[in-house]
Structure formats: C-alpha cells, structure tokens
C-alpha cells in the first residue's frame, strides 16, 4: 500500500481529444465532474485536498472507469 500524503491536493484532468462523452466519470465521481448539455465532462477546476479520501477514491474510480482512458489525476502543491 502506498503511503497517503496528507499535504497538497489534486485535480482531475481530461484529455478533451480522447474524451468521447461516455459520461462514466460523472457517474463515478459526481462531486468532481459535472456534465454539460452535450454529455461532456465539466471538471471541478479547484484542487481537492488529498486528505479528502472519499473524493480521491472516486477520482481513482473515474480514471479507471473511463472507457477512453482520457482522465488522469494531477497532484497540486496546494489544496485549494
């Protein structure tokens, strides 16, 4: 098991070219991903603290659940 860092935050990033608007990310991480009228994700732009374990877990689900593998988690030095 990786040691969970407490400092810093993360954001989800989508590669808009790969994304085909399946919408799985919105189902898996509704607190981080909204969906627009055409079905493409609107991702929360401000970092979420890494200490928020629930959000981080759903972000990981979203990354793994993306059929196009268009999502990734990016670490940020600050949490908000």
């Amino acid at each position, binding site marked *: 098991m990786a040691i969970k860092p407490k400092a810093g935050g993360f954001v989800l990033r989508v590669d808009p*070219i790969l994304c085909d608007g399946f919408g799985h990310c919105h189902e898996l991480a509704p607190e981080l991903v909204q969906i627009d009228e055409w079905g493409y994700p609107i991702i929360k732009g401000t970092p979420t603290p890494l200490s928020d374990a629930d959000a981080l877990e759903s972000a990981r689900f979203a990354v793994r659940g993306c059929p196009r593998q268009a999502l990734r988690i990016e670490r940020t030095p600050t949490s908000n």
Partner: protein
Amino acid sequence: MNATLPRVLHGATGRPLSLAEHQATFAAPVRTSGLFEELEASGLTGRGGGAFPTSRKVSLLRNQRGHGKVVVVNAMEGEPEAHKDRTLLSTNPHLVLDGAEYLAAMIGAKTVAVCVPRDNQTVVHYLKRAIYERTLRTHKGPTFELHAAPWRYVAGEESALVHWLNDNESLPQYRASRTHVLRVGRGPALVDNAETCAHVALIGRFGAAWFREMGTATSPGSALVSLTGAVDRPKVLEVSLGTTLAAILDAGNADRRPQALLTGGYGGTWLAGNHLDVPYANETLGPVGAMVGTGVLVVLPRSGCGLLETKRVVDWMANESARQCGPCAFGLPALAEDLTHLLHARRDGPRVLARLIERCGVIEGRGACRHPDGVVRMVRSALSVFATDIERHAQGSMCEGAKADEHWVTVPSIVHEDELVWQ
C-alpha cells in the same frame, strides 16, 4: 538604417526582392555572436497572435538537449482577414528566411521548415525561388524545407502545424502542460510566425537599441496591421506599436467614425468606435477589452449590424472546428444557432440570450487548443459592445443593418463538413 517605417516591409517594389537585392537593401548580416542577448534586450513579442516573448521561447529551446532541432516558420495565416504574412513573403521573403536562420543559429538547429498554405500558389512559388537562391550561396546556412499545408483556421495553431509536419494531419494536439516542447520527429521544434522572424532578422542586423526606438516600453518595435472592412481597399500597414487607432484608420484611409472595430481577428474582440484615441499596443488595448492578436483590424461602419457580423464569423468558426473536442464540436454550432435566433429576432429572444451567455461560460477553456476560447471571447465582446442593438433584436425587432443584410467582415464560404481537407 534609421528608425523610420517601414521596417519589415522596407524596399517594397511590388515583387519579392531577390537575394542580391535583399542584401543590398539591408546591410549584410554582421552579428555572429551575442544574437540571443540582443533578442532578449529587444523585448520582441510573437506577432502570430499570442504576443509571447520570443526570447523566452528561444531560451526554452536553447536549454533543450537533443539533435535534429527544427525552426518552423509559421506563415499559415489561418485568419481570413489577415494578409500580413503573405504580403511580407511577397515583399521580403529573404528577411523572413534570414530571421529563421538566426533563430536556427541561436538554438542550434540545422533545419528550417517554412510552412505556407497550399492554396496560395503565388507565395509558394516565391518561397521556392527564395530557397533555391539560398542554396547557391557560398556560405552554408541551415537546410530550408518548404511545406505547403492545407489551409484551415486551426492549421496554423502550432501543435496542429507540428502534427501536420509529423503525421500529415492538421489537427491540434492536447498538451498537458503549458511548457510542453513540440517535436518534429525527435527534434524539439521552435515555431515562430513569419513576421516575428523578419523582426528577428532586423534585430540581428541593427540591434536591440535600434529596435526599441519604435513602439512602447512594453511593446517595442513595429507591427503589421491588416486593415479591412469599411476601407477603400484592404491593405497591410506597418505601424509603430503605440500609434493611436485613429491614426491607423487615417493612414489606411478607413471610415473615421466607425461603429466598432474587430481587433485581433476572428478569435479577437470587438471594440466600440469611441475608443479610437487608444494606442495600438496590448497593454493599452487590454484595459478597454481589445487586443493586437493577429494584427487584424476590421472597420465596421455605423450602417452595419454587429450581431450579423458576429453570427457570420461564429458560423464559419464553428465549421472550422477540428471536431476533436466535444465542447468545441457541439458548443460552437450551438453558439451559432443562438446568434442566428437572436439575429432574426425570433420569439423567446431574452431566453436565448441568457442561454447564449451560459453556453459561453460552459465552453470556455475546455478544448485542446484555444479555438473555442477565441470564439467565446469574440461573442462576449459582441454582447457588451453591441448590447443595446442585441437587446433590441432579443425584444423582437431587427435593426436596419441586419435587414439590409450588409456584410463588412470577409467570411469565406462554408465548406461542407465532408469536404474539409485536413491532410
């Protein structure tokens, strides 16, 4: 050479200068060392639209390791209203190539790829001849390659251009970080606009102090302006940055009391006609909501309808989307549809206007390139500059300009989706 205009268009004879004429017009290149320091001191910013400091870009590439570095001269000019790069290449092609040669020397590149749109065969021909003349020199510079890429609005975006050089597809690429280095093959690529290269050539000859004799402290030098719309004829002017808009309109023999100006091109902004006393430079245009951008100024007279022009531009821009990213592929046609609805003063105007504003916020910043952002910026500026007119349209009455269906912005005909050529 003294500090008078024109600079990059100096020696214009109506035909491209040959290498011998070029060397006679501009004193032969003297500086061999300290080029980069001069470029840094000159404060030259990119003239392709982004106005990014050229020396910062060069220093990023200088610090890159690796063989096969490439200088890419971007003369794609996807902006339909811009003519500056083709004018420059039809006047002083060797000045652009000199600049590219200096840039190649600065970063240690052995190849220069010159990219021009393939539908402009005249410019392609001029460049072919200029490059041939260079191969006959005794002094051997970098190898010049000429590439004629398909003409699409987004084809001139640097990642699309590099993608075209690599894979023969003019599609923008997603870059996860801002400082991502583009590569042609395995070699890091420095992509610079043709006009920027010409300025580099002059800085290499006459130095940074000479360059700064013109322009403002933050936007030094001169720039090419493509002036169209309510003008006697479309023209390219070379102006010192910091000249007032009124002086540019005077020099170009344009309508002196315009309703508005489209600044910076199709991805630029509208500027109300009462701001003509503003100096033409990013730091002074910015606060009033305008920009230098690609150097385009379209003059909209009082008889025109800003909403109609905006709708026409957005229609075309939506069709020019590479259709890679959902928010751009679906969002831009949605904006165009809302604008058409408002233009024809159909029912439900206020609701459509509110939806348009909301959609602008949804689309912004969600494409791989800045194409959708440019359109959103343009639409937003139209909503503020033409606010009263748009409000009237929304309430159900078309203005006279819209009824007359007068067109001032030159918008190319819309190519059917299936016939768009990307390769």
